[in-house]
């Protein structure tokens, strides 16, 4: 069975909401906006909630059609193939960013002197394998992992938040809104994750109006992310020059004085949290695989997915200088990210509306003929 049920859809939404934002993003935002990153993150997350609304409406309008059939019925075969291939190409870049984030996290937090692209090989192999499995497999896996992720985040809250001085986030927009705005669009590649859920067009059992619960799921995920990011923003608000790629949310459990006594028990928590990254990246790979299967053929789609895995590994070896990678992603790739991630769902929504009109027209014509 190639479908997910409603509960699995909500779990996938939650994990996709939190996955990519735990690594480099808060540090990169702080370098651009300082403590106004708090506002920048609120702006970006609000845009993502609107995006989620558009995605849910598109999923609802798609009925039993997959994303290719939805676009093909509205815009024709050629346009839909081009669109899906472009979006797949974009998600290849995005997967590269995910791998770079994961590699940076492990190289600074765990394997400080030995982390190399070779360590990404099992992860890439797992993603490719993931893409060949039906949606029901990812749905079931997400259902199993989500409670563990939620428990780990709640534990993190108890361990970290009592020690945090959140007043350090003030004043909000103390020097105008410019800094906050500068912290939004350059990081578009780290947001807009819900677009990948369009792969679930026609694949959610018992959806309908209940799909809108996905907004709550997304909101809860964002609330966690904003809370943990704000911990970093308030801690380093006056000293952003101290921040390097090694600083991420994983350092926050060390906030309280004397916390070193407990050792790095927080790393167990982050390991659970990381499973969200595996799922989110897996769904991106699934999207690439399915898109190429729909547009080309099933066999070619699988080979292309395998090729994407090899390409990601080669890119991780060649482009290992993190400064250059993040500079490229924030100065060049932000525009394709905005266009792809925020416009593609709108295109799917328009396709869904066109399909609905066409269906109604057909019914009307049939009724007229009978009459």
């Amino acid at each position, binding site marked *: 069975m190639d479908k997910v049920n409603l509960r699995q859809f909500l779990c996938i939404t939650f994990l996709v909401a939190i996955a990519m934002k735990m690594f480099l993003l808060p540090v990169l935002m702080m370098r651009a906006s300082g403590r106004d990153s708090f506002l920048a993150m609120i702006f970006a997350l609000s845009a993502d909630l609107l995006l989620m609304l558009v995605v849910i409406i598109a999923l609802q309008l798609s009925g039993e059609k997959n994303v290719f059939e939805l676009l093909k019925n509205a815009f024709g075969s050629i346009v839909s193939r081009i669109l899906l291939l472009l979006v797949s190409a974009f998600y290849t870049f995005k997967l590269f960013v995910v791998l770079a984030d994961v590699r940076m996290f492990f190289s*600074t937090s765990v*394997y400080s*002197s*030995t982390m190399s692209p*070779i*360590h990404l*090989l*099992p992860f890439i*192999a*797992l993603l490719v*394998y993931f893409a060949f499995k039906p949606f029901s497999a990812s749905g079931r896996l997400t259902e199993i992992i989500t409670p563990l992720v939620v428990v780990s985040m709640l534990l993190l809250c108890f361990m970290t938040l009592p020690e945090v*001085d959140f*007043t*350090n986030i*003030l*004043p909000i927009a*103390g*020097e105008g809104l410019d800094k906050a705005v500068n912290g939004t669009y350059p990081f578009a590649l780290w947001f807009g994750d819900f677009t990948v859920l369009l792969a679930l067009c026609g694949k959610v059992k018992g959806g309908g109006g209940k799909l809108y619960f996905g907004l709550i799921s997304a909101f809860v995920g964002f609330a966690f992310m904003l809370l943990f990011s704000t911990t970093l923003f308030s*801690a380093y608000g*006056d*000293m952003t*020059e*101290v*921040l*390097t790629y*090694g*600083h991420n949310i994983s*350092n926050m459990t*060390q*906030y*309280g*004085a*004397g*916390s*070193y*006594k407990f050792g790095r028990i927080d790393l167990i928590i982050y390991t659970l949290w990381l499973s969200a990254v595996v799922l989110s990246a897996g769904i991106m790979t699934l999207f690439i695989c399915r898109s190429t299967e729909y547009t080309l053929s099933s066999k070619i789609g699988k080979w292309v997915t395998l090729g994407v895995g090899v390409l990601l590994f080669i890119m991780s070896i060649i482009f290992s200088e993190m400064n250059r990678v993040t500079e490229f992603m924030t100065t060049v790739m932000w525009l394709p990210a905005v266009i792809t991630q925020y416009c593609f769902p709108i295109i799917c929504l328009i396709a869904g509306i066109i399909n609905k009109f066409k269906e109604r027209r057909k019914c009307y014509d049939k009724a007229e003929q009978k009459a």
Partner: protein
Amino acid sequence: MIKLNRKRKNSLLVLFFSVMFILISLTPLVPSAEVETRLMVNAIGIDVGEDGMTVTAETINGEENEVVYGKGDMLVDTLQDLNERYGRRIELGHCGLIALGSNVTREDAICIFMNVLSDGLINTGCSVVSASGSAREFISKAALLTKSTGDGVSGFISFTDSQASMTVPSILEAMQALKSKSGVAVIPILGFKEKEEESGQSGSQGSTTEQGASQNNQSKTKETEIVPPKTAKMLSRETYVLDEEMSKGLIWLLPRSKDGMAEAEMELNNQTYVLRSVIESKTTDVSAKFEDVPVITVGVETKLKLAQRYAVLSEVEKGLSLNELHDMMAEAYENSIREEVSRLAELSKTDDFLGFKTRLYRADPKRFNSWDGDLSNARIEYDIKATVL
């Protein structure tokens, strides 16, 4: 060609992933565990002088603690010197304490903290204290004294932090204070106290007077102990020490300090009672705003548990009601707290170690940016509330 069924395929895939994972994830352990090539540090002391920087580190190597030294112009040179002297790379990830020498200035401290934080060398929860003399002497002595507990210096400091009235800041908190608009950090001073104790048996004490003196001299032993912090060093434009009397106010104003003893004097029926209480709970609220002048409001609310109750309860027998007595004790404490807090707050107008400018900036950043930064004409209001249990 052998056709594999689904179960067999999945088993082979699981085996493949497991083998790949094990082989790749264990690569850091080959040829030997990385921890054996490291100098694991429990606490470090940093002195800055004309001839450069000296780092003294208490290291943990299995069951034994050892004190090692390094010298250099800057922190990175000094740590490299340590690596070369001892043939191991220094590992600060488990370091629980940084002791700054008495001659470390604000600029030196910023430089040191920025180095260790930005390079991710040290845990952000690592405690920071100031030594009363040189950090080298402090670490060397402290390592010997705490050897018996097995905890190391940093273990003792964490105990102190939970029991003392003056809390020890983390390196992150200290850095936040230094980089805030106020730009001053308060670092507690730890020092040593030597005391003489008499040892020996009663027989020798009952000896003759001629011999008594010499025998008494031989039977006296000197003991050195680490003193919990009662004074603080101000890392400001000019570094100075806040004496014990002035530091009393810090108990009420440091946000994380929750424990300690509080004293007050109460005049009643021509008698002066010295009240001693344990702080059960305490909340501090310092807020600021701009009016015609900057206005700072210092609020302290505390609940105190009276020790030596018998000393004051005699007044109840003389006719005073218990409620009236509690109200009078509360008033005595409020006056005492106000006196301690106002002394510090007035001093903070010159040096802003209580973070008034930071709070003014948070309240009204636009007005703050056009303000000349002079706190001398600021008005300080107090809202002190004490309850004696």
